[in-house]
C-alpha cells in the first residue's frame, strides 16, 4: 500500500467523500472486471460493484490497515457477487444468451479460446475464484485466503487442484 493510499483512506475515514472518490476511481475497473468474470449478467456485475463501494464506504471505519486495501475491497465484492447469480449457475428466469455473458463480452478476440472460459466451465466456483485472484489479480496466496475468508492451506490446495484439472482439460482440448 502506498503512503498516498494511506492518506486517502485516513481522509475517507474522517468523512471525506473526495478522498474515497479517488480510491473508487483507482479500483473500480479492476473490481468490475473481477465481477464480470464471476457474475452471470452485466447488470449483476454493475449492481455488485455499486454495492461493494457503498458497503466499503459505510464500513470504512472497520477496515484493518494490516490488510491491503484491495484485499478488503475484493472480500466485500466477493460477498456481494455471491448474493447474485453466478456465471456457472443456470438462470431460471431468463433464457441463456451467449451475447450477454459478461466474460465472453470482455475477451479480446484473438481467434483462440481464452483459458478462463474453460476454467469457468470446468472448475469449481471456489477454485475458479482462487485461480483468478492469484493469477489475474496478482494476489499473494495469503491475500487470496483473506479475500475468500479461507485458510492459506485451503487456497494452496484449491490452486493446486484447479491447475491440475485445467491442465487435464487443456490436454483433452488439444487432443481433439
Amino acid at each position, binding site marked *: 500500500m502506498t503512503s498516498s493510499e494511506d492518506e486517502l483512506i485516513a481522509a475517507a475515514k474522517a468523512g471525506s467523500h473526495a478522498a474515497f472518490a479517488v480510491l473508487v476511481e483507482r479500483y473500480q475497473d479492476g473490481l*468490475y472486471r473481477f465481477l464480470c468474470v464471476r457474475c452471470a449478467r452485466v447488470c449483476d456485475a454493475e449492481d455488485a460493484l455499486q454495492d461493494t463501494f457503498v458497503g466499503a464506504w459505510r464500513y470504512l471505519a472497520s477496515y484493518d490497515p494490516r490488510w491491503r486495501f484491495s484485499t478488503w475491497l475484493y472480500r466485500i465484492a466477493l460477498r456481494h457477487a455471491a448474493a447474485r447469480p453466478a456465471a456457472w449457475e443456470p438462470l431460471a428466469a431468463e433464457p441463456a444468451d451467449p451475447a450477454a455473458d459478461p466474460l465472453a463480452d470482455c475477451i479480446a478476440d484473438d481467434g483462440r479460446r481464452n483459458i478462463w472460459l474453460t476454467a469457468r466451465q470446468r472448475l469449481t466456483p471456489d477454485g475458479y475464484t482462487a485461480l483468478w485472484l492469484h493469477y489475474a489479480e496478482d494476489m499473494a496466496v495469503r491475500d487470496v485466503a483473506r479475500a475468500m475468508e479461507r485458510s492459506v492451506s485451503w487456497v494452496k490446495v484449491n490452486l493446486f487442484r484447479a491447475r491440475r484439472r485445467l491442465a487435464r482439460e487443456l490436454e483433452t482440448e488439444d487432443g481433439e
Partner: protein
Amino acid sequence: MTELEERLRRDAAKIRAETTPELRARVQASLQAAEPAAPRRRRPALVPPPRLLGGAALAAAVAVAGVLALRPEAPAPESWPATPTAQTQTSLPGTLPTALQADFVLLELEQRATQPLTEEQERLEADLRRLEEELRRAF
C-alpha cells in the same frame, strides 16, 4: 513459472472490462447518498460491579468465621509422624486440617456466590457472538 501459469496470466490480460461513465456516475451518486455506519462499539468488560464482589467476599468471610467458631478445634499434633517418602498418605475430608477445610468452604461459597454471574456472563457472550455473526452475514 509453468506454461499453464503463463497462459493464465496472458489470457487474463486479454479480458478487459471498463466501467462506463453511466456506471461511474451511478456509483458516485449512491456514495453521496450513503452515510458511514457508526463505528462498532467496543465490547464492554463483563466484570461484576465492585460492590457485588465486596458483598460476596464479605459473605464468604462471615461463613468461614461461623464454621471455624462452631467446629471444635482439633488438637494439633506435637510433631508430624515420620513417614517414608515413597509412601502415599491419603486423608479423608473429615480429617483435613481446619485451615484446609476453611479453604474448601471458602471455595464452595465463592463458587455459589459467583455462579449466577458466571451464567449471565456466558449468556451475554453467546448473545454477543450471535449478534456479531449476524452483522458479519449482513455485511
